[in-house]
């Protein structure tokens, strides 16, 4: 075979290779376009595994698994450009998962509690008119708060707010008012207004005598703290200062 015919053959073969490359590239583009409507299946929430299974999945690092599954619980049901409405969740399962994950972290972290309150607990009356789903979140956070009131007192306040509105659950309001008078909450780590909150709760269910009894038992230290806070608040309002930033957190003092 002469050199020129060999070059011709090589050129021919190279052209054929390019041709095949573009043919398959075009096929890939066609497949890509024709499958645009197909969406990846969104995971549904399974029943939570047993404590033993969770320990096996953790490979010795429970904290990592807690953080991993906590984030998974935050996004479960959403994906592929879709968002699952809160009304479609099985709240019994959600609470089981929350309890299982709390056990994995020895109830130290506030992440699952935040998730339950700020995401699953934000279900509206329009889709949960009898507060059946909200009641499960409230029940969970109530137990969480009672396990360590000095640490998780803010969930007692959250539960109290939900019990008043939208749940309007008198017996629960009364129970929380009692819980808020727990000796464990009488520490400096808990603000004085939390210990005075039962007054408002009792008043909201018409228990004026019990409200008065709480007022009668306010300690001088708590009274002084609340009055100092009230003076600071009045001064801030008089000066037109913003009390909260856009995220609802206390505004930083101007520098």
């Amino acid at each position, binding site marked *: 075979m002469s050199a020129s015919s060999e070059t011709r053959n090589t050129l021919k073969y190279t052209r054929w290779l390019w041709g095949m490359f573009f043919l398959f590239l075009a096929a890939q583009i066609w497949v890509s376009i024709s499958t645009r409507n197909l969406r990846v299946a969104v995971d549904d929430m399974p029943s939570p595994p047993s404590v033993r299974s969770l*320990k096996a999945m953790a490979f010795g690092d429970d904290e*990592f698994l807690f953080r991993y599954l906590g984030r998974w619980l935050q996004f479960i049901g959403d994906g592929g450009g879709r968002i699952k409405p809160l009304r479609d969740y099985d709240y019994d399962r959600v609470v089981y998962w929350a309890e299982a994950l709390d056990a994995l972290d020895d109830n130290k972290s506030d992440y699952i509690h935040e998730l339950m309150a700020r*995401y699953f607990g934000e279900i509206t009356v329009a889709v949960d008119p009898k507060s059946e789903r909200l009641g499960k979140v409230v029940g969970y956070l109530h137990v969480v708060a009672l396990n360590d009131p000095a640490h998780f007192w803010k969930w007692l306040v959250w539960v109290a707010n939900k019990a008043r509105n939208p749940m309007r659950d008198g017996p629960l309001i009364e129970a929380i008012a009692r819980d808020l008078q727990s000796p464990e909450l009488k520490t400096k780590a808990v603000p004085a207004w939390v210990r005075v909150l039962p007054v408002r709760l009792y008043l909201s269910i018409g228990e004026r005598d019990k409200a008065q009894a709480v007022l009668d038992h306010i300690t001088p230290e708590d009274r002084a703290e609340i009055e100092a806070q009230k003076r600071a608040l009045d001064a801030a309002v008089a000066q037109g200062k913003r009390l909260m930033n856009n995220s609802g957190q206390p505004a930083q003092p101007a520098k």
Partner: protein
Amino acid sequence: MRATFRYVFLTAIRDRFPIAILAALIVAIALSVLVAGSTLSEGQQAGLAYGGEFIRAVLVLGLVTFVCFHVRRLHDTREIEAILTRPISRTAFVIAYYAAFSVLAGLLAAITVPMLVAALGAHGWGVLEWGASMVLEVWIVCALSLFCAMALESATAAVMVALGFYVLGRTAQFFLAIALSNLGVSENEGINITFRSTISVIASIMPRLDLFGQSRWLVYGPGGGWGVEILLLQTAIYVPLLLFATARDLHVRKF
């Protein structure tokens, strides 16, 4: 011995191993920061837990792959025969080789501490305890990989066996807990006793790798029932055990 030590370092640099691991560590930390940003709250804690586990995965997978393929190439190119013709005993060769790998691995593990501090704001004794435990863990992984690579004829088989052994080391105590809880796997008590005894023997032989590198230390600080002392003891027992086995294997091998 010093020449062997230097040889391992030079070949590691030639294979761009430290650079590859550093690049993978940076990607792992960047991923952790990304994940941390997507959580509802406690983003830093989530980032630290993810960072700790990703770093662990990069170090273990990287070291097992590098050590196994490095040692097998040493056999395939007959470099090991050239090295052993020098006045160095086979035991000294194993120790020098292991020392070089462990110094390299220890440096790479130690570097992750300032990376976690800088990128994810890790602080306190917890990150130091975690860093120390990572150094000890990679020392065990190096000894394990060296043993597998010397004992097995194929690099791929060595990687698979070393990783299998590692996973078993992190889960054996969990299986032991199941076995000791008297949960039967079968109706036949004889089978149950055999199962429990087998698991008990396996768990006794395995190193307690599940105790190392707890993300909990990064998030909440030291504590949780054990400290570095027990990890130090585990390393001080298991590394010599594997090195003696490796040296014995090399002694009976004919080149």
